[in-house]
Every structure is written in structure tokens, then in C-alpha cells.
């Protein structure tokens, strides 16, 4: 506890370090991009702003000295997830350009809940970690070496279990997206009919 208190004494909010300033600026960009992602009326733009948000987060990881996580973030999220989402948008024939009804009628309730949750969370987090200081000097906490060592020493079993989960997800995705055999021969304009009947 003494370490925390001394840290609080030595590091005030009014005298930020260079890393903090960088974190703050990138954080603002990330947050702004996230806000645009959830509010924009152009669906494809939302996906592109999501790229900005996720990239901003990767930078934040780097600033927190977690370099491996940062590169994984870039590889998986920016590289694959966003691409998948764009595919999804295209396959569902999302309109290109402004769509007036991107938000559902639930938006005011959603806004209330989100703002209330944000207020409660920020209040609690600030109240709890006001004086906590992260020491970023010394060797990087999230270097590839450190992460790999802990992952394959202590987390091997969950890691392997996760691979099974990924396999299951793979199979599930294939099964779900596969068309029924009967539909293969029918014209694409009428292919909803039998399935609709089936779900009844």
C-alpha cells in the first residue's frame, strides 16, 4: 500500500508523462471512431470506422508494452474479422450509402442504458484506481517471449481446449451457411420458400 500512496504522491494527473499523453490522444481517437461506428448510417462506413477503432486499440496495447497482443490484434481483428464483417454486409445485400433506418426504435432506451452504465462504470473505476500507477519501465511485460513462455507453460490445456472450440466453430459455421440440397436446384428468387415452410 505504501508503494501506491507514494506513487500517487509522485505522479499527479496534472503532470502527465509522454506515454500518458500519447495514450490519451490515441484513446480519444479510438473512442471517437467507436462512436462513429455505432452511430453512422452508412453500413460499410461503420465497418471501416471499426478498423480505425481496432487499430487504435492495437496502438494502446503497444503503449502498454504488450506488443504480442498488439500484433495479434492487428492480424486477427483488422485482418480477418473486419473482412468477414464486410463479407457479411455484402452477402446480406446491405445497401451502399445512407440507410435511413440503421437504428431501431429502441435507440433512446439504448442511449439511456448506455449512458447510465458508462457513468456507473467510470465512476467506480475512477474511484477505485485513482491512485494506481503502472510502472512501464524495465523489460516489456507483454513481449512475445514472456507471453509465449506463460502461454505454453501455464496455459497449455486451455489453449488446446480452445483449438477444439475453434474446430467446433468452424464446423458449425459450415453447417449453418450450407444451403439445403433441395434448394440447390431451385432458382435463387424462390429459394426462401421451402425453408420458410420448414421453419413453421
Amino acid at each position, binding site marked *: 500500500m505504501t508503494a501506491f500512496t507514494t506513487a500517487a504522491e509522485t505522479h499527479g494527473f496534472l503532470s502527465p508523462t509522454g506515454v500518458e499523453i500519447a495514450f490519451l490522444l490515441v484513446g480519444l481517437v479510438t473512442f471517437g471512431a467507436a462512436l462513429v461506428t455505432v452511430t453512422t448510417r452508412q453500413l460499410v462506413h461503420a465497418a471501416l470506422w471499426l478498423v480505425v477503432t481496432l487499430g487504435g486499440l492495437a496502438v494502446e496495447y503497444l503503449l502498454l508494452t504488450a506488443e504480442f497482443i498488439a500484433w495479434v490484434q492487428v492480424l486477427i481483428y483488422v485482418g480477418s474479422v473486419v473482412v468477414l464483417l464486410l463479407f457479411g454486409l455484402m452477402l446480406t445485400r446491405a445497401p451502399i450509402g445512407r440507410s435511413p433506418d440503421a437504428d*431501431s426504435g*429502441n435507440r433512446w432506451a439504448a442511449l*439511456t*442504458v448506455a449512458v447510465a452504465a458508462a457513468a*456507473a462504470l467510470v465512476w*467506480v473505476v475512477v474511484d477505485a484506481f485513482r491512485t494506481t500507477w503502472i510502472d512501464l519501465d524495465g523489460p516489456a511485460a507483454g513481449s512475445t517471449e514472456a507471453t509465449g513462455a506463460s502461454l505454453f507453460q501455464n496455459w497449455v490445456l486451455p489453449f488446446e481446449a480452445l483449438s477444439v472450440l475453434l474446430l467446433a466453430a468452424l464446423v458449425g459455421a459450415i453447417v449453418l451457411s450450407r444451403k439445403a440440397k433441395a434448394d440447390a436446384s431451385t432458382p435463387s428468387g424462390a429459394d426462401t420458400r421451402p425453408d420458410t415452410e420448414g421453419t413453421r
Partner: protein
Amino acid sequence: MTTTTLAVLVPLLPFLGAVAGLLLGRTAPGFVRPLAVLPTLTSLVLAALVAVRQGGDAAVNAATELTPTGSVPIELALYIDGFAALVAVLVGLVASCVQIYSTGYLRDDPRYPSYAALVSLFTSAMFLVVYSGDLIVLLVGWEVMGICSYFLVGHYWETPEARAASLKAFLVTKLGDVPFLIGLFALATDAGSFRITRVLGAVASGSLDHPTLIALLLLAGVAGKSAQFPLHTWLPDAMAGPTPVSALIHAATMVAAGVYFIARLLPVFEASQAAMVVLAVMAAVTMTGSALAALAQDDIKRVLAYSTIGQLGYMTGALAVGDRGAAVFHLLSHGAFKALLFLAAGVIIHAAGTNSLAAMSRMRNLRDRVPDAYWTMTVALLALAAIPPFSGFFSKEAVLGVAEHVVTGHTEHAPAAAGWLVLVAGLLTAVLTAAYAMRLWLLAFRGRGAEAPDHGRQPLTMTVVLWVLAAPSLALGGFAFRLLPDWFDGRDLSPTLTTSVLGTGVALVGGIVTYGAWRHTTALTARVPLGAVAAHPEGDAAQVEAEAIATHEPAYGDIAYAPDPADPGRLLLGPLHRHAAAGFHMDALYSALFVRPVQAGASLVRFLDREVVETYVRGAGALPRWLGAAVRRAQTGNVQTYVSALLAGTVVLAVAVVLVATGA
């Protein structure tokens, strides 16, 4: 084999026959008839053997205790004195006749196996009552008879009359059995034992503390079982059962059990003068009332049923004046001729296709169709009317003679008032008995009108037993009145001159008056067509009878009454006829006194349940229902709304938890 072993076998054989009949009835129908008849016949032989061996000497008294049963021990005890030995022979004879008769009577009945098994069980229970030396064992037989009578009276359960009659018989006899049970317990507590010998010993030593209470409680059970006023109402309705069952119930088993029970425990009743007077009043009311009612009945079996009640009245009358010898004498002779009457009536109903006397009086040549029934029934009716030298004359004279004996003050047990009551009522009943016997005979066999329908020859099994029973009806009394005192208490049973002349005289008067009335009214018969006949030339007797019972009420408007102006009973009774036909409205009275209040109470409870309790229940249910309707509107199906509400709740909870945790 010792006499005890024989005596144990007597109730056991029909019981085993009943069990085997119930088990094999479905799988092996060929064994049902032998299983019904043979055990009963064997029991008859064994009972006769026991009677011969006992021979009126010292009572056979044996007991074994299966297990300790507390302060008052219950033992499997036999107590066979002269009464028990002779009554058992009668039971065996009548039961055998009934079983043989039933094989013909219920020839095509699909429920014959269970019927025969129940009759066997009934017989076994009566044997148990007769031979038992322990009151609790006696009670077992007593109650088994109750349940058997329920099933047997309801044998034609397809007809509503039979269903109602079986329920009524069961409930009314149970109504008497509850006080009976309490009385037995009180008696055993006072005497310290359920053994009949010890109870009688306690009575003799005067250690009974509440003789009147006990006697009256026991009397209630006896009144229920023996159909004495005021619990007699079940017996006429029990005619809805098959005729052989009626014969069994009326002649030897059920109703005889009550009289036999008093005869066994007569000293207990004699210990209370009040009980004897009550018994005498009961007997007198029962006798005269039932004889009047019998004169007005239209159903031939109901005439006989009321006649049974009246003859049982004679027996209780004899007991009320303290002579069980006369009572059991009459029980024996009555058992023979009443069984004969019923079995012959069954044949007549089968031949005529109706149970209505009004319909029979419009049939020519019925007696030629059933010569066996005609002759035997004539004998039995003469016995019933107590015409010498038939057996009924001697037994009835014994009763009247004892009553006269009491009136003249020769006995110390019975009060003179009881003697007067029994004597006067007995003579009055003798007139009426002769009258209704004459009416029955005239209406059934002297009808004029259309030819009687031809139902074919009666089965041999049904006619032979009539002649078997006709022998004791004819001759039992004349031979027995000299021998019986050796078996009984030793009192003289031979008829005295005064009562013989009086009784025979009034009986002749009754018969002649009825004949005169019939001559007067019979011309009307042809002018008023009446009657419904169930015609099933191929069907067996049971089917014909079931139809006859079911059609009586739709045809005549009443189960007991027919609007027949040619009925001599109507002329004799005058304005009383209507009431007598309805059994002096006892059923209506009970209905008004007991049934309606209970039903009113039930409807009150139902009202309270439906309107009051239910209102609370509905009120309790309304609030959740309204809440549910309100909440249901929130189910829009939009997942986002659900999640919004969920998360809003989560936020609120989290904030609350944080506030509580930080102590704010």
C-alpha cells in the same frame, strides 16, 4: 373326526368354495357349478352330522386363541348347543336348495360365477354366525353377510332399482350395526370377555352393569339385520335382487341372524325389563304393520318380503316373552316354507313373465304351466297362514301359547304387558297373514283372461328343490314339536287348546273373508285390462325377472303398487290401501327426516364452497392474472428491448451493490 373338527369344516367348506369359485370363475367355467353346489351340500351333511352327534346334550364348547388381543381376549371359539346345531342344518338345507335352484335360474347369466361364489360366502358367514362362540368372530360373519347382501341384491345392477336397493340394504343395516358394535364392546367390557359362555355366566351372576343400555344398543343391530321396525325398510326393496338370493336372505341367513343372535344372548335381554318391552313393542308394530302392507303389495316378491318381516315379528315377539325355544322353532319352520315360497315365486315369475299380481290375475291357466310351483306353493301358503297340520301352525301356536302363558302370569322373566302386546298383535297378524296368503294364491293361480304365455318347461333343478322344501313345510312342525324341547331349553312347545282354536279360527276367518272379497271383485278383472309382460321365451329366469322388475315402475307408476280395482286387498283395506302399499310411508318419512336434511346440508356446504370459498380463491387468483396481463404486454418479441431492460436492471443492481459496499 371329532365333532369340533366337523363343526369347523362346516363354515370353512363354503368359504373355500367361494374363494375357488372367484379364482376359477373366468378360467375354468366348467368347475363353477360343482364348486358352488358341492361344498354347500357337504356342509349340509356335516351340519346334520354335528346335530346328530350333539343331539341336544351338553353344548360343544371349544376355543383357541390365535394371538393375544389386549385386555379383552378374542378367541376363535365354537359354541354349539341345540339351537346352533338345528339352525345350521336349516342354513345348510336352504343354501343347498338355493345353490341347486340357481344353476337353473341363472342358467345363462354371464355373472353366474361371481354370484355363486358370493352365495357360498354368504352361507359360510351365516354358518360362522351360527357356530361362533365368540362375539367378535360372530361379528365378522355378521358383517360379511352385510357386504354379500349388498353385492347379491345389486346383482341386476343394470337396473336403477337394484342399485338403489343394494345401497339401501347396505346403509340401513350398517345404521343398525354401529350401535350393535358399541353394544358388543359395552357387553364385553362389563362381562370381561367376548366368549358367549362367559357373557352368559356374567349375566347369571348379575355382574352386568348396564343391561338396559347394552340390550337396546344390541337391539338396534338386530332390528337392522332382521328387518324389524323401524329399520325394516330395506327388506322390501331388496326384492330387486334375484329370487334365489331373496330366498336365502329371507329364509335362513341374513334376517335369521338377528333373531338367532337374541336367542343366543336372551339372558342379557331378560336382564332388562325395559328392553323386553321395547322388543315386544317392536315385534307388535312390525307384525301388524307388515301384514297390512303385505295385503296391499302388487309385486309377488314384495308380498313375501313383508310376510317375512311379519313372521320375524313373531319370532321377536316370542323372544320378548322370554321363550327362545318357540322363537327358534318358528325360525326353523319359517325358514323352510319361506324359502319354498320364494323359490316357487321365482318359477311363477319366470312362467308368467311378470312379477305383478295384477297382471297374473289376468292370466288363465298359470297353474297348469307350473304344476310343481302351484302345489308346493299351496302347501307353503297354508303353512304361512298357520292352518293345521302344516308346520307353520305348530310353530306359530308355540309363540302364541307362550304369549298366553305370560299373560296369565306364569313366568317371572317377561312382563305381562309384553305378553298382551304379543298375543293381541299375533292374533291380529294371524288374520291378516291368512288374508294375504289367500289373496296371493287367488290372484296368482285363479286368474282369468288371456292364456298365460308359454316360457317352456321349467328346469328340473328348479322344480325338484321345491318338493325337497315342501316336505319340511308340510311335516316339520307336527314331528318336531315333541322332539325339539330336548334340543332347546326343555319347555313344552305343543299347542295349547285356547290359542290353537283362536289362531286357526282367525286364520280361517281371514281366508274366507278374502275369498269373499275376491269373488266380489273378480268380475272387474276382465273389464280393466292391465299388465305388462316381459316375453323372453328363450331367456333364463333371471333375465325375465330383471326385466319384470325394471318394467314394473314404468308400467304401473310405482314399484309396489298397481292401480287394480279387481284387487281384493283394495276392498279389504279400504282407504288404508294406498298407505299400506307405500309401506305406511316409512320411506317418505325417513326421506323427510334424514335424507332431506342431509341433502340440504350438503347443498349448503356446496353453496359455501362454490360461492364463498371460491370467491376468495378467485380473488387471490385475480391479482396475479392482472399482473400477468400487464407484464404480457411487455413481450414485444424484440430482443433488443429485452436486453435493454436486462442491462438497465444490471446497472441498477451494480450501483446498488457498490453503494452498499462502500457504505454510502
